[in-house]
């Protein structure tokens, strides 16, 4: 097959699916005139942004913006180098110390993206002959990290401890070289992992456990540390990974652990070594956001009020949603074309959400996925609800 044919086939498939070229493309729509954490212009429409993962709404927080500006003046626009070379500034080291303190862990490592945190950690922890045991609905970064590691990748049914147990049982002695990987909140339907049961299995079979708290950092737990805190099993989770690009409103990723070996990941992780470190301004705004996450729990309270409001109203209207109230609220549709049409009409009604299609979705469903923010006003949540209600009646 000619080299570029698969890309040309993708182009034909996109044209077939998206229809006329003058219609809005949900997978690359320009977002302009971003006025706040919750307002922007999309395709000429003033919209409420309800598909941003900006859970605490900190992207325009004055302290975060000021910290970033100050860092730009102090340390320039970028580090232009790897953490292994010239890219470890005091900014990065301070953020790592603050993350370790926040999670009550021995140490922390900062990566340049959440995606790279999973690639880097999984690649450093498991290798050929080991086993990566992952929830079937794990994020693509976890799948990619496992694939690059060379370890045997085994999947268990989504959030099904019995399915995990059967697979661990078959491993025999290999359980000792097995890393179980789950997520705090799954990004598509907003459901939480059954972490207490998974921890019990991890302990019984002598495996290691990694939890990706990308969507649960700042969202779950009294202190905002995620699902492991909420469930009370932090000591039994070997590695917690996460991102700065959601609740913390920046970009980058991290891992925290009590294992002394975490420090050695710096010398074994290609995703840590072979990329430039995050710009100081991004690290500075992330540090400011982490401080806010720790000191303003009322943001979490507000986030959950908004989440309950939207989830309950959409369910009342009759939408098929995920199994539990969560800041990730996805309405499910049978056909991708139906979801695409709905997404476009939502934009016309002044609401931006995410459109997510198979194979990136569970059970082949097409999802119109909202994410709620603490920064949404009650009026904005009402506006989202009204748009969904109006489209239900069209």
């Amino acid at each position: 097959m000619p080299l570029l044919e698969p890309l040309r086939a993708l182009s034909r498939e996109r044209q077939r699916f998206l229809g006329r070229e003058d219609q809005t493309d949900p997978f690359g729509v320009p977002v302009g005139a971003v006025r706040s954490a919750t307002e922007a212009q999309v395709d000429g429409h003033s919209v409420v942004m309800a598909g941003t993962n900006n859970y605490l709404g900190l992207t325009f927080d004055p302290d975060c913006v000021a910290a970033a500006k100050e860092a730009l003046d102090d340390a320039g626009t970028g580090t232009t180098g790897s953490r292994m070379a010239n890219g470890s500034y005091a900014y990065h080291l301070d953020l790592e110390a603050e993350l370790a303190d926040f999670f009550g862990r021995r140490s922390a490592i900062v990566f340049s993206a959440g995606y790279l945190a999973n690639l880097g950690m999984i690649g450093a922890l498991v290798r050929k002959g080991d086993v990566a045991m992952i929830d079937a609905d794990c994020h693509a970064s976890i799948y990619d990290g496992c694939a690059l590691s060379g370890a045997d990748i085994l999947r268990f049914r989504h959030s099904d401890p019995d399915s995990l147990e059967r697979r661990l049982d078959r491993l025999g002695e290999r359980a000792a070289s097995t890393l179980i990987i789950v997520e705090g909140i799954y990004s598509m339907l907003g459901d939480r992992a059954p972490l207490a049961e998974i921890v019990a299995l991890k302990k019984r079979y002598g495996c290691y456990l990694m939890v990706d708290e990308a969507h649960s950092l700042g969202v779950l737990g009294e202190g905002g540390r995620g699902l492991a805190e909420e469930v009370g099993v932090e000591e039994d989770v070997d590695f917690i990974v996460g991102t700065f690009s959601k609740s913390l409103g920046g970009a980058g990723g991290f891992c925290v652990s009590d294992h002394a070996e975490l420090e050695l990941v710096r010398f074994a992780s290609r995703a840590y070594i072979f990329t430039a470190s995050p710009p100081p301004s991004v690290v500075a705004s992330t540090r400011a956001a982490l401080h806010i996450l720790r000191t303003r729990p009322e943001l979490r309270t507000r986030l959950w009020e908004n989440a309950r409001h939207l989830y309950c109203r959409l369910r009342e209207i009759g939408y098929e949603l995920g199994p539990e109230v969560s800041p990730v609220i996805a309405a499910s549709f049978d056909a991708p074309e139906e979801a695409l049409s709905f997404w476009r009409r939502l934009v016309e009604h002044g609401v931006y959400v995410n459109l997510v299609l198979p194979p990136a979705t569970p059970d082949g469903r097409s999802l119109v996925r909202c994410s709620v923010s603490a920064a949404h006003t009650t009026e904005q949540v009402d506006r989202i609800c009204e748009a969904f209600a109006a489209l239900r009646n069209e």
Partner: protein
Amino acid sequence: MANIDEILERLFDHLRELAPPGVVLDEETDLIGTLGLESITVINMVLEIEDEYDISVPLNELSDVRTAGELARLVHRLTKET
């Protein structure tokens, strides 16, 4: 222990539920090319097969599988190793 033919027949049972109506299944049937299945559909079907035969199929090995016959041979090998 099931032989390859028995495993293949069982695979066909699963595939009939997923394949377009009227498609004739045989050992050379290309799971993705002929049946038009998404790769995620195939690996989800494998979750069912794993539990039926009490085996674990590494995703890495599945990436080399193209046809129903290749999948049956992989399942057969793993049942022997278990």
